[in-house]
């Protein structure tokens, strides 16, 4: 099901130009990465290694050196073809109710039909189990509920690439499992490509068709296909092997 290259990154270098920059050196140091349409890429890596920065560069939120091409177009600014679900909770617009938060980007895109807007927002809020709260305002929601709404907002736009920065980190195990399977279904059905940052090895194995491990020095240390057949459970064949491989890659790094 994977097809044409949708995202091509060559020799990506990122440095923050502030007083700390010299100390920090390159946050991303010559990253090469090609993603094919329909892939579900999970990124693992120790805290502070530059995962969010990598995602933000792809999203067009940061200046960078090197090339990032989306469908052959150089990334210079954010766009609706790459929708970001940020790591922070405060990404919903507080002056809009849950459903208006989901509808607003669609309106911006030019969809005016009220019934259609309602239908789309209901559909996606249902998927993230937020339909009952559609009239709530963000300040009335818990952190996890906010993240779920942000996911609905991103998916409702049906972008080509969804960029997700630890979207499930704040959820309990049950809603996490539900959302993982919902997300995977949406990915399958709508053939949307996903880049998904997580700290959780199991989550990476369950969701990813491909898994990257980033190292502290801002490089991609490991880039492997995930051959496990979905839905993955810890009982799936080769699960343990995969887990060990990723775990040792991560663990080695923290040792260094």
């Amino acid at each position, binding site marked *: 099901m994977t097809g044409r290259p949708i995202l091509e990154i060559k020799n990506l270098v990122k440095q923050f130009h502030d007083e700390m920059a010299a100390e920090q050196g390159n946050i991303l140091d010559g990253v090469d990465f090609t993603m094919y349409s329909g892939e579900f890429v999970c990124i693992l890596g120790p805290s502070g290694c530059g995962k969010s920065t990598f995602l933000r560069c792809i999203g067009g939120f940061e200046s960078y050196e090197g090339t990032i091409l989306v469908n052959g177009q150089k990334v210079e600014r954010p766009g*609706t073809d790459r929708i970001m679900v940020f790591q922070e909770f405060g990404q919903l617009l507080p*002056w809009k109710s849950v459903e208006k938060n989901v509808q*607003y980007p669609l309106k*911006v895109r030019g969809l005016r039909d009220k019934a259609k807007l309602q239908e789309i927002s209901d559909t996606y809020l249902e998927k993230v189990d937020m339909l009952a709260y559609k009239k709530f*305002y963000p300040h009335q929601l818990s952190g996890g509920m906010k993240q779920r709404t942000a996911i609905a907002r991103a998916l409702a736009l049906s972008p080509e690439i969804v960029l997700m920065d630890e979207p499930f980190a704040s959820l309990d195990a049950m809603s996490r499992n539900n959302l993982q399977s919902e997300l995977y279904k949406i990915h399958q059905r709508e053939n949307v490509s996903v880049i998904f940052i997580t700290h959780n090895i199991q989550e990476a194995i369950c969701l990813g068709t491909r898994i990257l491990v980033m190292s502290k020095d801002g490089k991609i240390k490991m880039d492997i296909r995930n051959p496990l057949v979905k839905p993955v459970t810890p009982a799936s064949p080769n699960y343990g092997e995969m887990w060990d491989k990723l775990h040792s890659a991560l663990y080695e790094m923290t040792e260094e």
Partner: protein
Amino acid sequence: MRRKLLHQGLFVVFVLLIWQIVYKWKLFPTLMFPSLADIGQAFFDGFVKEELGQMVMYSLSLLLRGFIIGMSLAFLLSGLSIMNKVFGDIYSMLVSMCDLIPGVALIPLAILWMGIGEETIILIVVHSIIWPMSRSIMDGFSSVPKLYKEVGRNIGLNQFSILLGIYFPAAFAHVLSGIKVGWARAWRGLISAEMIFGTTSSGAGIGWFIFMKRTNVDIAGVFAALLVIVAIGIVVEYVVFRFVEKHTIRKWGIGK
């Protein structure tokens, strides 16, 4: 809320009582210190026998026109300063400088340059509100979280629509406090201008009423006019502003 109103109400009754006692004991000459009944009578006469009602309407119409012009300009110019760095730098300096000049101090100049028409009074009103409002709006704009702006750019808002779609609502608490300050300043600017101008070709306002009453040593009349000013202020504060607050920043759970 009830409690607060009760306390405030009791305080007003208390002050009125003291007033009446001071009057009864003749601590001051009656000419300078009228009884509550005199003030009430003057209030009544002002509206029924004299043209206080018309004058109030005239003042309000000037105020409203100046307010709308000043507010629109403040929005426009503050918006421009967000969109253009150079303009922003210059405008914020201009705001700091002009905000220091009291409206009354401009009246001699305004009269010399523009004569004593309505436009001159409106100009004074505009001057009294445009600078404090611009200050609040720009403060508000510069404290808009980066995340909202990124979300706005991500969902495809352009430079102009991001101003209306993100900056304005996100800064609404500041905008509102700017409107409050602007409203109070505008009232003061207006009354001072009216007192100095007397009547313009098209009508006379409350300021003029006060001035006339003073000339005739009708102190009860002066108090009646002050009462009108306070009453209008209270209605705007407790009815209009409260209403707007309830349906915006309180509903959204944002505040300064």
